[in-house]
């Protein structure tokens, strides 16, 4: 029996097998391999690169959130940066020192992180009635307005954010006296702060990715897809549009909040000007490059964009006309930040035109090629 089944891996004998997340041996093996690789990376690469990994994981949580509302439910949101900011400031205020000039409650990350998600989710819930009345470009414009409102709020609310140009200290990663942001021994092994942060971000990414994947394959995820593809037909099938758009916005914003709080445990300062339109566009780029309406694609896209600055920072060494100085005082033609912005745009256009399903679509092509090998169809 078991022998027969191993020879026919896609013969399902129960509905539970048929509906399992990892329903083929190939998926089980590749996920296991990826997990092992991810767990060994902190011992193989240097801290600055490790930082990029951890940041990529945090970005991926945010990208998954945006993919839930924009990819799965089809509601284009340019307001993701606002919810990231809500999460970041909530967590920073809750975990911040009580005796500085900034708002701070001195709580631990185990409180700060979930509450950041809840507060951002609540903000999304409050915004969601807009989404049930608007769609397409109108919704995109309105959510864009949210970013500008947020920018103003963060500039002016100095006791919370420190104001423009100054900023406030980031989120303190303290769990019961265990500091993720300081080097120390873990089970007798000396670990750097980056190694610890890497594992924290990785663990949270796994949890939130699995939760999102479950949501996507449930009746809720199907309702999202139905609303995206044909909203009238969805309603005639008994899917209340307003309710599901609201769920999509709430969950998406909560993910953004978690991502925001995690991102600013990695960096020591939160600069209010960073929650701008460019940040929203970066998240859009992540899901377009990674793959719309896929969880693994969101992660791939976030890692891709997370490592993009790493690549562009090497560019000045190769091309003298690219400057590292924002003011171009060393005679460059453009600076690395402009180069990054141009690359975001170019990549979005290139993927939309050439590979609309993103990196995930590329992977599907590769997989189908080997499935069909030696035939091309």
């Amino acid at each position: 029996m078991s022998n027969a089944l191993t020879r026919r891996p896609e013969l399902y004998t129960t509905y539970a097998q048929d509906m399992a997340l990892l329903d083929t041996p190939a998926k089980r093996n590749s996920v296991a391999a990826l997990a092992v690789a991810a767990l060994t990376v902190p011992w193989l690469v240097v801290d600055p690169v490790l930082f990029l990994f951890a940041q990529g994981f945090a970005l991926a949580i945010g990208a998954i959130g945006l993919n839930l509302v924009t990819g799965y439910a089809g509601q284009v949101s340019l307001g993701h940066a606002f919810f990231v900011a809500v999460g970041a400031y909530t967590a920073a205020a809750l975990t911040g020192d009580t005796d500085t000039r900034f708002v701070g409650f001195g709580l631990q990350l185990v409180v700060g992180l979930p509450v950041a998600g809840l507060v951002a989710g609540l903000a999304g819930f409050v915004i969601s009635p807009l989404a049930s009345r608007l769609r397409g470009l109108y919704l995109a414009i309105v959510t864009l307005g949210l970013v500008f409102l947020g920018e103003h709020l963060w500039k002016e609310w100095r006791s919370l954010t420190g104001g423009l140009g100054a900023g406030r200290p980031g989120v303190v990663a303290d769990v019961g006296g265990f500091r993720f942001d300081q080097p120390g021994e873990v089970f007798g092994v000396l670990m750097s702060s980056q190694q610890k942060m890497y594992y924290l971000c990785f663990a949270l990414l796994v949890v939130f990715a699995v939760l999102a994947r479950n949501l996507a394959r449930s009746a809720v995820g199907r309702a999202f897809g139905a609303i995206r593809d044909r909203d009238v037909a969805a309603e005639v099938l008994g899917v209340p549009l307003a309710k599901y758009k609201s769920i999509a916005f709430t969950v998406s914003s909560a993910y953004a909040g978690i991502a925001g709080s995690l991102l600013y445990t990695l960096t020591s300062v939160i600069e209010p000007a960073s929650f701008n339109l460019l940040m929203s566009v970066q998240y859009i780029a992540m899901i377009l490059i990674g793959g719309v309406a896929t969880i693994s694609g969101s992660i791939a896209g976030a890692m891709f964009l997370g490592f993009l600055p790493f690549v562009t920072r090497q560019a000045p060494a190769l091309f003298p006309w690219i400057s590292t100085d924002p003011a171009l005082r060393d005679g460059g033609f453009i600076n690395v930040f402009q180069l990054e912005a141009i690359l975001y745009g170019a990549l979005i256009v290139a993927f939309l035109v050439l590979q609309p399903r993103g990196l995930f679509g590329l992977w599907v092509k590769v997989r189908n090629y080997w499935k069909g090998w030696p035939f091309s169809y």
Partner: protein
Amino acid sequence: MAVVTPAGAGAGPVLEFSDVVLRFAGVTAIDRVSFTVDPGELFAIIGPNGAGKTSIFNVLSGVYAPEAGSVSFLGTDIVGHKPHAIAAMGMARTFQNIELFENLTVIDNLMLGRHRHIRYGWLSAMAWLGPARTQELASRRAIEEIIDFLEIEQYRKYPVGLLPYGVQKRVELGRALAMEPRLLLLDEPVAGMNLEETEDMARFILDIREELEIPIVLVEHDMGLVMDLADRVLCLDFGKPLTTGKPSDVQQHPDVIAAYLGGGSAVDVAASDAAADDEAAGGRGEPTAGTHDRPAETKGTR
């Protein structure tokens, strides 16, 4: 062809559509139309293009709100209800131009049909424990029966956008059946289908009546199919009801013939009577005659 004695015939009608009026800026799409559908009945609505057939469906499923009249479904007045609320009461529908979720697989489309039976929330869904898991597995089992019934086993995991037209029509019927409806609205289920696909669909419709005993409202241009399957027929023209009755009576009704052939004198009608049959059968003559015989044959061999 009245094959079924309606289950629970003593009970009131499933659907009462009385004196409904629907206007779009000067155009009266539905003009005081009334009809009832009894339990287990197959009620057909016919009429030339623009007669208001699909508008009636849109009023029934709550997409349009009528200006006057009342619509009572299972004893409840549903005018003003949202489409999803009406769907939740058990009214299922297919569309004239397929309205499937083309990026989702056949399984997901059918599972969406079961949405009104799903009782778990998004938190339970994220954890995939308890009610979410139990209900998903139960739904999966339920739609497998529909997959088997409609013979679409080989397409289960394909996105429906990739499937041939005839199969998509079948999946859409399956999605409506997955709702376990109390009333099924079929909007041109065989439009654009070839003879073989039409015969298959006719067989599915008959099976739905006999095995599932679901009352059906059918809008269709294939007159052979309508005349064979329907218990009663309502003919509309420009939103006005012309006649309601047995298929054979409606077919002979002078107003109906006039509506389809462009109302001439009595002499014209008599002269074009043979042509009327042809036209009424969708203008396809011979192939439709085949459809005409087929369901009877299917019954014989069963």
